[in-house]
């Protein structure tokens, strides 16, 4: 039990402000969870410090009254004694860990308390299990995200097993995922019977944990609420109290936020990408930020929000193009146009007073500066030192400086973390007020209240990519609220990997890796042999120089030696190449297989996002380029470096001065090629992006040729094509332009190492320091190693290319796979249930919270205008995509828990487009169930009413579908699809627009076939022709992604206007077809 008995405290000491708390009387029972809330400066943090003893032991001041925990007087005892009773978690994840690695941090508290090693081990184990910390063990804390740090902080105090947990604004730096995690941890603590005292601004996540809310104002407890009472407070009452929302769903939406999008965008981003080490951390295809908008960037921690902002500002190097109002700007120009208000404002205030800060490095006059300060409410602080201001005032000072410096684009990095309601509102107003002064504001934030209050657009980021960009209109607001309310995946950040590019490739090589090494060894022997002839020949030349006669007998051995060396060289080099090619193509096979597996496991949406051209390039060209690296660069490069090194050693033995000179030249050459590498790498991104665009344009052009010709739209299409090609030319030339001079330079340095040693050697001979025979040896060795070095360096030029391709391969591979489980079907029946399902194709949310069930053995029809989401629902049920939130279940089992096979065996999907494989008709039907006998196939075909027309084909069932494909009508193809479904005999059938392309004669057959398939099954029909689903057990009317009505035909005909409209429309077209047929007769 915690008791505060009539406590008065005021901060004193040298930094004391005199603030504090008065007349506090508070009793908190064991196992209770109490939330302290109120505006900033109301004294809630002071209460937490009173409980954990930091007041008065650490923070000085005047204390009257006492604080007891289970009878233990906290105020009077040492902090270390209190530490065993009370565990504290603080606001700033950055400054509350003492160690560098996570394990050390988790045991820190226990070590301080002097526990035995076994005891600590046991507690560490328990903490790891209870707090689900496995992925975070043995990590560098500096690599973790803020949320993960906070998890470790909670774990660290949890390990000491205190009775009371005190938390001071633990969520203020956290994203939604981390808040969810924090919530779960607190639930666990509460289950363990711990007492929790939290001081917090964001209270929405505490609503189901807290027993009591204590509202403070001006250092006094003003009111107490139970959770239920809290929930009933209206927005206005909360605003009155200065409290944040109690539920995200209730946040009021600011006045019409969205601005009309017209004219040129303020910021146009094309193919922006960024890499850290060897991994691509940002990859945005195209973003257009409208002018005068306020864009909120949301997404989990570590998804690339800050990287995007920093790349846009030109702070970090990036590839791709960024244009401001139509003009392309480089990094430096962007830095001049942009300003970023950082999360830690302390870092960006440099001067002694506010006015100096604002005027620094800007052209504005003192009057203008004063006006700006006035506008931001800073006029009275004009001459104060920035460090003496409050957090919000510092923020405004930074913004004022940005405005005075004429910055046009303002970025804010989590501006409202740790702010109370008024602070947040004030900031929102400030942003809205600035809207017309600056071209664009971009806010990185986790704060739904701020977004809904002032932003006009939302940009979603996911794993380094832009997953959606939409205006914050009515629909957008609902969507963003929903984003913040949905549970997120429980993934933690990956351990950073420090592998080099070549190391990664070798990893893909798998068991072929040994071959690469063998190849390198063989080639080294070969290359070494290739130098031997030079040494041998130098022997002969030596003799000549020294005036000894060169006889044939004497030279035979030398010539033989040369011959043998050449043979050894040829044999070993060839063998090496053979082995390395084996290894290389083996590796390519591995990579292609891995790529294919990944592609298969991904949602169709992700796959479809890549164009065909792109995927083809990935599978064939990009992977092919790795062959170059494996088969040539690694082994040959190693060999070609090894031999010159050996030659230089010999040279040192011969004459060290000459050798040092040669080494110097080689180093200059290496420096030059390194320069080329880095310069080339810079331009590589733009070059490859343009190559990608060109590929796409070509594919599109060829695919669309037919349409283009028919509609005579040659102009526009070829213009696009031409632009892509010209772009490619420009970027490629650009790349070569910067690389060429360096290429030329190292080419000359390496190929003429001799040039430099020749005169120097001559000088040495004249000085009598060099023996002429050694001189000759040196010259000849230089001749020998020059070509080898040059050969080797020619690879260096292509390393950036290869490494860029590897990066894009890895990026393509790292998408999240579809969430499929491993278990079989365990549902109790075949009822399909959609539970508040939401789904978006990128920017466009098409399913907005749909809930319905299709009962076992009944027919459920989905009707609605095209684009109302009918087909999408079907695709979601067969798990082509993962839903954003909600759940889809069969017989009570979520489809995400089932393996894809299990799901496939339950559901047969007859889609609008029928795909026929290029095999016989027999095989095509058999695709429904592998291993079905011919008889079964024919039986199914009969039931589907297609036996008749199949037999009339030239080879009956053995007619290849490729050839027959052109002969079959749409209706016939569809009936083949029916036959497949009948063969499959799955208990759930989805028929999508099944009768869309069928004429009257076919329709009768179709109807019979349909009756056959659907007998005794759970059926979901998607149809435009309402007449065909008139008898369905349940009809669901969809409108714009929502369910507008539900019932039988008769019910809907009276209750739903939307249904009546659809019905009338459908009847009209029906009659129209009939009439046409009558006329035709």
């Amino acid at each position, binding site marked *: 039990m915690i008791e505060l008995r009539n406590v008065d405290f005021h901060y004193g000491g040298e930094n004391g402000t005199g603030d504090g708390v008065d007349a506090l009387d508070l009793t908190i029972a064991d196992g209770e969870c109490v939330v302290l809330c109120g505006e900033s400066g109301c004294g809630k943090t002071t209460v937490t410090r009173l409980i954990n003893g*930091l007041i008065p032991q650490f923070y000085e001041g005047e204390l009257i009254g006492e604080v007891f925990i289970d009878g233990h007087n906290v105020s009077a005892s*040492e902090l270390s004694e209190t530490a065993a009773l009370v565990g504290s978690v603080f606001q700033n994840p950055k*400054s*509350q860990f003492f*160690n560098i690695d996570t394990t*050390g941090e988790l045991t820190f508290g226990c*070590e301080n308390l002097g526990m035995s090693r076994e005891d600590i081990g046991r507690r560490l184990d328990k903490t790891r299990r209870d707090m689900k910390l496995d992925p975070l063990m043995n990590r560098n804390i500096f690599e973790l995200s803020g949320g993960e740090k906070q998890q470790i902080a909670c774990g660290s105090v949890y390990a000491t097993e205190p009775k009371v947990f005190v938390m001071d604004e633990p969520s203020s730096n956290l994203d939604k995922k981390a808040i969810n995690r924090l919530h779960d941890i607190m639930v666990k603590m509460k289950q363990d019977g711990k007492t929790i005292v939290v001081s917090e601004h964001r209270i929405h996540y505490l609503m189901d944990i807290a027993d009591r809310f204590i509202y403070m104002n001006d250092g006094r407890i003003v009111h107490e609420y139970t959770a239920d009472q809290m929930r009933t407070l209206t927005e206005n009452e909360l605003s009155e109290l200065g409290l944040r929302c109690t539920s995200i769903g209730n946040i009021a939406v600011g006045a019409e936020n969205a601005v009309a999008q017209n004219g040129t965008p303020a910021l146009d981003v094309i193919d922006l990408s960024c890499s850290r080490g060897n991994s691509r951390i940002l990859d945005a295809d195209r973003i257009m930020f409208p002018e005068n908008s306020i864009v909120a960037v949301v997404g989990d921690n570590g998804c690339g929000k800050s990287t995007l902002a920093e790349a846009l500002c030109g702070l970090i190097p990036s590839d791709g193009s960024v244009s401001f109002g139509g003009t392309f700007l480089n990094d430096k120009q962007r830095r001049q146009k942009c300003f970023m208000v950082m999360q830690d404002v302390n870092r960006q205030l*440099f001067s002694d007073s506010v006015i100096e800060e604002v005027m620094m490095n800007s052209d504005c006059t003192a009057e203008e500066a004063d006006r700006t300060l006035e506008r931001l409410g800073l006029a009275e602080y004009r001459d104060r030192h920035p460090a003496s201001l409050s957090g919000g005032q510092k923020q405004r000072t930074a913004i004022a400086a940005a405005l005075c*410096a004429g910055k046009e684009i303002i970025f804010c990095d989590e501006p409202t973390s740790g702010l109370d309601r008024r602070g947040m509102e004030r900031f929102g107003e400030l942003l809205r007020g600035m809207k017309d002064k600056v071209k664009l504001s971009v806010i990185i934030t986790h704060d739904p209240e701020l977004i809904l209050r002032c932003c006009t657009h939302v940009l979603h980021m996911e794993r380094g990519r832009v997953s959606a960009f939409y205006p914050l209109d009515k629909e957008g607001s609902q969507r963003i609220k929903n984003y913040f309310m949905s549970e997120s995946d429980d993934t933690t950040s990956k351990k950073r990997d420090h592998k080099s590019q070549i190391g990664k490739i070798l990893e893909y090589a798998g068991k072929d890796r040994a071959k690469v090494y063998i190849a390198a060894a063989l080639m080294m022997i070969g290359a070494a042999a290739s130098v031997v002839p030079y040494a041998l020949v130098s022997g002969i030349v030596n003799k000549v120089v020294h005036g000894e006669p060169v006889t044939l007998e004497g030279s035979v051995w030398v010539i033989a030696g040369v011959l043998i060396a050449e043979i050894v060289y040829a044999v070993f080099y060839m063998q090496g190449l053979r082995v390395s090619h084996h290894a290389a193509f083996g590796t390519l096979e591995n990579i292609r297989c891995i790529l294919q597996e990944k592609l298969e496991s991904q949602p169709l949406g992700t796959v479809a996002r890549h164009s065909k051209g792109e995927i083809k390039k990935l599978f064939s060209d990009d992977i092919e380029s790795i062959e170059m690296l494996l088969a040539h660069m690694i082994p040959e490069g190693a060999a070609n470096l090894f031999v010159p090194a050996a030659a230089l050693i010999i040279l040192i033995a011969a004459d060290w001065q000459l050798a040092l000179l040669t080494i110097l030249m080689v180093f200059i050459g290496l420096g030059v090629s390194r320069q080329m590498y880095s310069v080339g790498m810079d331009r590589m991104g733009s070059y490859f992006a343009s190559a990608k665009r060109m590929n796409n344009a070509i594919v599109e052009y060829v695919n669309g040729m037919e349409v283009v010709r028919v509609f005579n739209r040659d102009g526009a299409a070829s213009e696009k094509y031409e632009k892509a090609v010209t772009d490619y030319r420009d970027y490629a030339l650009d790349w070569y332009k910067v690389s060429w001079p360096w290429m030329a330079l190292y080419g000359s340095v390496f190929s003429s190492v001799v040039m430099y040693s020749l005169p120097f050697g001559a000088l040495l001979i004249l000085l009598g320091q060099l023996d002429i025979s050694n001189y000759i040896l040196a010259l000849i060795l230089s001749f020998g190693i020059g070509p080898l070095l040059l050969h080797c360096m020619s690879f260096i030029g292509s390393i950036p290319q290869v490494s860029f391709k590897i990066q894009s391969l890895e990026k393509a591979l790292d998408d999240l796979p579809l969430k499929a489980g491993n278990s079989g079907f365990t549902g109790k029946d075949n009822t399909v249930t959609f539970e508040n399902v939401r789904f978006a194709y990128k920017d466009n949310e098409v399913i907005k919270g749909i809930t319905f069930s299709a009962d076992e053995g009944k027919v459920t029809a989905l009707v609605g205008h095209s684009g109302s989401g009918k087909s999408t629902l079907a695709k979601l049920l067969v798990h082509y995509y993962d839903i954003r939130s909600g759940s889809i279940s069969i017989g009570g089992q979520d489809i995400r828990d089932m393996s894809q096979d299990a799901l496939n065996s339950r559901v047969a999907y007859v889609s609008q487009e029928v795909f026929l494989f290029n095999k016989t008709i027999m095989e095509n039907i058999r695709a429904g169930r592998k291993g079905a006998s011919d008889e079964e196939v024919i039986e199914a075909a009969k039931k589907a009413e297609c036996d008749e027309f199949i037999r009339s084909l030239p080879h009956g069932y053995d007619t290849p579908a490729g050839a027959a494909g052109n002969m079959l009508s749409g209706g016939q193809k569809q009936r083949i699809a029916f036959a497949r479904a009948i063969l499959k005999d799955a208990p759930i059938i989805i028929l999508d627009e099944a009768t869309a392309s069928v004429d009257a004669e076919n329709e009768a057959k179709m109807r019979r076939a349909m009756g056959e398939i659907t007998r005794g099954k759970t059926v979901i029909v998607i149809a435009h022709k309402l007449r065909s689903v008139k008898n369905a057990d349940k009809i669901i009317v969809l409108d714009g992604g929502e369910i507008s009505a539900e019932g039988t035909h008769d019910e809907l005909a009276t209750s739903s206007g939307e249904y009546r409209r659809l019905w009338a429309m459908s009847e009209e077209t029906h009659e129209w077809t009939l009439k046409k047929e009558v006329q035709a007769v």
Partner: protein
Amino acid sequence: MDFELYGEDKNALVKFDPRTKFVVFAVSLVVSANSYNVAALVIYSVVLCLMLFLCGKKANAVKAFLMLAFAVFLRFSMEHAGTGAPVIVTIVSCILMIFLFFFPVMLSIMILTQTTRINQFLSAFQAMHLPTAVIIPIAVMFRFIPTVRDEWNGIRKAMAFRGISLEPAAVIRSPLKTIEYILIPLLFSSVSIMEELAAAALARGMDRSGKRSSYEEIKLGVHDYAVMALFIGAAVYFIVVSIITGGTAQ
């Protein structure tokens, strides 16, 4: 921020106690200061390379060994040939001797820092019965190096927006101003981190007067004693030889 800033011993073939590494470091200092015998110095350096290899930094050990071999070979070739312009000979042999003398110190620092985790250090200090007043500041220092680096990165970015240039020319033009621009934000943010850190550490019982325990287990094994004996023996040998040769020289 990579872990490489501090050591890691998970690849170690033999896990040595940090105390052993301290002994190696001390011996290296003695050897560098007292060696007049290049052959002995080279042998000692090779042993250090082997130590580094055993401690898990295999690539670095091989690299260091190759550099050593190259230097020795070059020195040998120079002496053997006896040629060369006097100026060049002096410069090159000077560089070589400096390299050879500093090699043991550099390598033992690598062994000490690159293959020892911070916790092992702290536990070793505790095991060596150093007072808390010494251990805590060292721990804080270790903790603060990456923090300052973080802060510095942030400040540099902030400077870019404010048009404060860090190009050498600008720094030379107004060095004091530049230092001020760097130090003011660095100090302000470091001070606030420091205070919060102190509060967090105290609230978790850091200043407890009783004995602090340690989860990190460090124990001197047979291999530790063997290595220590070997190195102390080497130190004694080098000192004795240096006294003898020093004596005869006089």
